[in-house]
Structures are given as structure tokens and as C-alpha cells.
């Protein structure tokens, strides 16, 4: 069946809410770390929108709303050895993977020292061979076959390494989605497909993208499990991701995780985001803010206090200030740098 976990079961879990993180093996430190890694991309995104209005940035794509999905999945990985194949909505994943705020700012400012690619890609697309954060691009769904291929190579090499890849609901309409999942199913590849279903591909609502309720329902057609999860509940996301990572690492093959979530901001700074969604719908979803939800949980369990929250925010604010300042002052690329890295430089 498509859903490893249906609504009744999740409701059942809700009663066990007090022990959830222990059941998941998450310590206080880890939980606070996760919280910080959700807050950070939110605060960076807000800063980016501000800088856009100030004319300091030319373009913004942000991830407000997707933080639980990103952090919940990323924290289920072995960082630095597992492969991460993200898309532009994944600032939280990228930071969880170990990109620093400075690295992020150098990228969005398009500066020469941008470690992701020297200012070549649009803001929002990161990469690092060191962090095993794979180079990715703007075209939708092209990264899914890459993730399958990376996982194939791990399998051939006999390494117990898992690959995770992220994409939106829009991506599920593309041929590459189908071809990649089909191949992964045939070869039982160690790969996890995470669909961040925020109900829209820019303006196109899910009902015009597919005739079904859940993307996860397609997984049985590829011979592996599909899971629907509340993408705004970081612990539920983590639980689903952990199971999927274990399956993959143990040679049991892929999982499709569909995280139901919502993007709060417009698609990008080129979108006003007002024509296709009602204010009510946005407000409805704001009530389910993943950060608020997690904060509530942490407070209920005495892990986070108002004071600590303030402290964390101040620390992150400062990190961002410093990074912005640094990146702002960093040099732009030299024009003729455009000519490098077309092919491998000849060995000297």
C-alpha cells in the first residue's frame, strides 16, 4: 500500500506526544540543534527579502515554511558521507548539511569566493564536493536521475552510502521523475525521494498537476513504499526519513516520502504570489508554522525557554550580520573569470 502510515495511526501517535523525541532517539542537544537549523534559514530568508527591497540583492528564492521538511530529513543522514541532491527550495537542507552562513551569502551575492560556483548559478543553488552536496540546477526534476545514478554507483562500489534527493510537487509531472523512480525501483537503489508538496508549482495548483490526492500513491507503481507525512512536523518527518534511510542502507531499496507543506513567500522575487492563493489559505497554513510547532513541543518538554530562544536568535542574528557584512565587502568575480572551468584545466 501507498501509505505506511495513515491518518488514524498518526492520530494514535499524537497521544504518545510526550515521549516522541525519546522514542526517536533524539537528545536535548540534538533537538536544540535541529531547532536552530530551522530558525537559521528562516532568519536568512527574511534577511534576503529585506536586502532585496534595499536593492542589495537582485533575486531571492526562499524556503519559509519548508524548514521542518528540510531539517527532519537531513538529520536522518550521515553528514559528509551520504549524498544530498537538493533543489532551490532547500536552504534548510543546505545549512543542515554544513554550509556556513558566509558561504550562503557569498553565493546569493554572486561573489568571486562563492564556494558553490563563483557566482555562476542563481541565488539558491548551492554545492560542495566536501559536504557531498551535489551540484544542481534550475530545470525541474533533472536531479532525480542523478540521485539514482549516484546511488547506483554507491551500490556498485559496495559502499553503505545513501543518497537523498528533494523536489517539489511540480517535479512529479515530469518524465525524469518517472524514469528515475522506475530505475531506482528495479535496482533497489539506496536512494530516498523527498517530495516537498506545497500544493503549487508556482501558480498551478495540485488539482491541475495530477488527478490524485497523494504523490506517494505512485510509489507502488515503482515497487517501493510511499509515505505521506506532515511536512510541518519536524519529528514526524525525521521518523519517516530515518525509516527510509535504514531501508536504503540495508539494501531494501528506495522510499518516496511526500511531505505536505506550504511555502509562505511568493515563488521567487519575480512572483507577487497573490493571484493564485487566497490570503485565508496562507493564514491557515501560518497557523501550522513548522517552527512554531516545534518550539511549542520543545517548550512543553522543558527543552526550550523564552530566554534560550532569545539567546539563540541573537546568536544567529549576529552570524547573519557578520556573514552579510563579509559577503557584501567581498570582491565580485573578474569579468574574464567567465572563461574558466569550461573543461578541466590542462595539467601543468
Amino acid at each position, binding site marked *: 500500500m501507498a501509505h505506511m502510515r495513515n491518518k488514524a495511526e498518526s492520530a494514535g501517535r499524537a497521544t504518545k506526544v510526550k515521549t516522541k523525541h525519546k522514542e526517536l532517539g533524539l537528545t536535548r542537544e540534538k533537538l536544540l540543534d535541529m531547532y536552530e537549523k530551522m530558525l537559521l534559514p528562516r532568519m536568512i530568508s527574511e534577511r534576503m527579502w529585506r536586502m532585496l527591497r534595499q536593492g542589495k540583492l537582485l533575486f531571492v528564492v526562499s524556503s519559509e515554511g519548508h524548514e521542518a521538511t528540510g531539517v527532519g530529513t537531513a538529520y536522518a543522514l550521515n553528514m559528509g558521507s551520504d549524498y544530498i541532491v537538493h533543489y532551490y527550495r532547500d536552504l534548510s537542507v543546505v545549512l543542515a548539511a554544513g554550509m556556513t552562513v558566509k558561504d550562503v551569502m557569498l553565493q546569493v551575492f554572486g561573489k568571486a569566493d562563492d564556494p558553490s560556483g563563483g557566482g555562476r548559478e542563481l541565488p539558491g543553488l548551492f554545492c560542495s564536493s566536501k559536504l557531498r552536496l551535489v551540484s544542481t540546477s534550475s530545470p525541474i526534476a533533472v536531479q532525480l536521475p542523478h540521485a539514482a545514478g549516484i546511488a547506483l554507483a554507491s551500490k556498485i562500489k559496495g559502499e553503505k552510502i545513501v543518497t537523498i534527493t528533494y523536489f517539489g510537487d511540480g517535479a512529479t509531472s515530469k518524465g525524469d521523475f518517472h524514469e528515475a523512480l522506475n530505475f531506482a525501483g528495479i535496482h533497489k537503489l539506496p536512494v530516498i525521494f523527498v517530495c516537498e508538496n506545497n500544493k503549487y508549482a508556482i501558480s*498551478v495548483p495540485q488539482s*491541475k498537476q495530477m488527478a490524485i490526492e497523494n504523490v506517494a500513491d505512485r510509489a507502488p507503481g515503482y515497487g517501493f513504499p510511499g509515505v505521506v507525512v506532515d511536512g510541518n512536523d519536524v519529528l514526524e518527518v525525521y521518523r519517516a526519513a530515518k525509516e527510509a534511510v535504514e531501508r536504503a542502507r540495508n539494501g531494501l531499496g528506495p522510499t518516496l516520502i511526500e511531505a505536505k507543506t506550504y511555502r509562505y513567500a511568493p515563488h521567487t522575487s519575480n512572483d507577487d504570489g497573490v*493571484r*493564485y492563493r487566497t490570503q485565508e489559505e496562507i493564514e491557515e497554513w501560518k497557523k501550522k508554522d513548522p517552527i512554531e510547532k516545534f518550539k511549542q513541543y520543545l517548550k512543553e518538554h522543558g527543552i526550550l525557554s523564552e530566554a534560550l530562544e532569545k539567546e539563540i536568535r541573537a546568536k544567529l542574528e549576529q552570524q547573519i550580520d557578520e556573514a552579510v557584512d563579509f559577503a557584501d565587502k567581498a570582491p565580485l568575480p573578474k569579468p574574464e573569470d*567567465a*572563461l574558466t572551468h569550461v573543461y578541466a584545466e590542462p595539467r601543468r
Partner: protein
Amino acid sequence: MAVKTVIEALREGLWEEMKRDERVIVLGEDIGIQGGVFRLTDGFVQEFGEERVIDTPLAESLIVGAAIGAAMNGLKPVAEIQFADFIYPAVDQIINEAAKIRYRSTSNYSCPIVVRAPYGGGIHGGLYHSQSLEALFSHIAGLKVVAPSTPYDAKGLIKAAVRDVDPVIFLEHKKTYRLIKGEVPEGDYVVPLGKADVKRQGKNITVVAYGLMLHYSLEAAEAVSRDGIDVEVVDLRTLRPLDKETLLSSVKKTGKVIIVHEDSKFGGFGAELSATIAEEAFDYLDGPIVRVTAPDVPAMPYSPPLEDYCMPSPEKIAGAIRQLAAY
């Protein structure tokens, strides 16, 4: 006459065609309630309804493939590819199918679709929102390829494209959308496909261009005219079928030619222009055939200094003109 932008002219032309002929439908990503990411189809779904203005799933091969099917069943589909950079998944449908349906069936079936695609750089779009793809499509027999540069031509050419009985790739330079303004007549007129237009008369050097580069070439021509160099500027408008007559007669007159495009050089569309001239007007040439293009890099980077380096500019074109004039 009213002064309009390129995008207003295109919108007006397409709107009028949908009014004129109910077989015309438009389909693509975000073209309905959103009115397209550039707002070219703003208001269309309200006027023509969801049956004729179709928000498709994110699937370029399907967009073109379904358009082909609808065309074979008597409609006149105008498919929008949101950015030309994203057309590659549809090239199988365009090249192996649309371009070959009439040929392989000896006209049992034809494929009267229009595929619109905003292309080109200089708008901080980075590697995947700046590409120029005319070389790819203009190589393919069975396709027509159009690239307007002025509002007047834009409206007249989109109408001609919609009325054409064969598949047309309609390339709209997105930087011209709001930058370029000009007079556009109310109501119906057509600019025929396959006809170039001499946008500036001159006798020393021919500059051949299309899209945004036409305007940069006119600027460059103006600049060098102060040095006494009299430049003729040919706006190709349609890249396939190529109006060889206009092209060659200008070259035969001036004896020197500069080809300008924004795409990278090696194997770009300019290569064919150069080869046509070298083959058919060789005896009239007084100097090498020069190309001003982007450098041979995979695509235009995002960061402004890198982007500027890649974009041909009026200054670079003027420089090339001066150099060739001195040859």
C-alpha cells in the same frame, strides 16, 4: 498610432488571433490565472475560458506533444515554454515529431503548432534563464524559426505564425519585452514569415542581427556613423526559412559583413549566415566575415561582471565595425 512595448504587441497579436479563430488555444505553465510569468497571457483565461487557456502540469514534452496531437485534430495550439532554457525536454517532440509529420506522411497530416519561448540574457537570469536556442531549431528542416525585435514586427509575426500551416518556433527576447517600445497599429496586420527587413540603410558594412542584438547593432551603427562609417543593419526576423535575397544583396552592396548574436559562437546561428555568404557571395567580399557573439562557455553566468562579459554590447559591436572598416 499607439506606442507599445514588445510584450504588449505580442499580447495584442495573440489576443486578436484567439478572437479571430476559435481553433486557437494556448497551453503552458502558469499561463492561466497567473497570466504567464511575464504576464503575456494576462486576462486570457478570463476572456477565453479554461478550455482554450490551459495551465499544464510541469512537463515540457507533454506541452508540445499534446499541442501536436491537438493540431493533428484540427486545432491551432500555441504552446508556451516558460523559458527557452527549459525546452530541451521537448526537443524530441519538436524535432522528431512536429518537424517530420508532414514529411513522413506526405501531407496526410500536418502540424500547425506555434511554440513560443522567451529567450536571451542580460536580465540577471543566470545559466538557466538566459539561453539562446536558435541554432538548435533553425538547423531543422520542417520547422520555421522566428525572432522578432520590434513591437511592430512582433505583433505582425505572431499573427503570421498562428496562421501558418507548419510548425513555428517563436523566440521572444525577454529583455526586449519591456525595454523596446515602438508604434503598433490597432487591429489586424501580418508581417510575413521568411522576410528580413533592412532596419538601417548604409553602404560600408552590413551588420546582420535579430532580437535584442538588432537594437544593440543599431546603437553601434549610430556610434560609428560619427566616425564616418555608414552601416547597413539587416534584421532577419525569420531565421528559417532565411531571406537569403535580402541578406546577400546587402552583403553584395557593402562587401563587408558582421554577424551579431548573443548565443555562443562555435556552431551558433551566425555560422550558417557566414557559410551562406562565403558560398554564395564570395566574389563580393572585401574582408573576413566577422562574428560578434558570446564567448564559448556553457551558458551565461549570474554574477553581473560575468554576465556583462558574456553579453555582446553596442560597444563591442562598434569595436568590431571599426576594425572591419579599417581592413
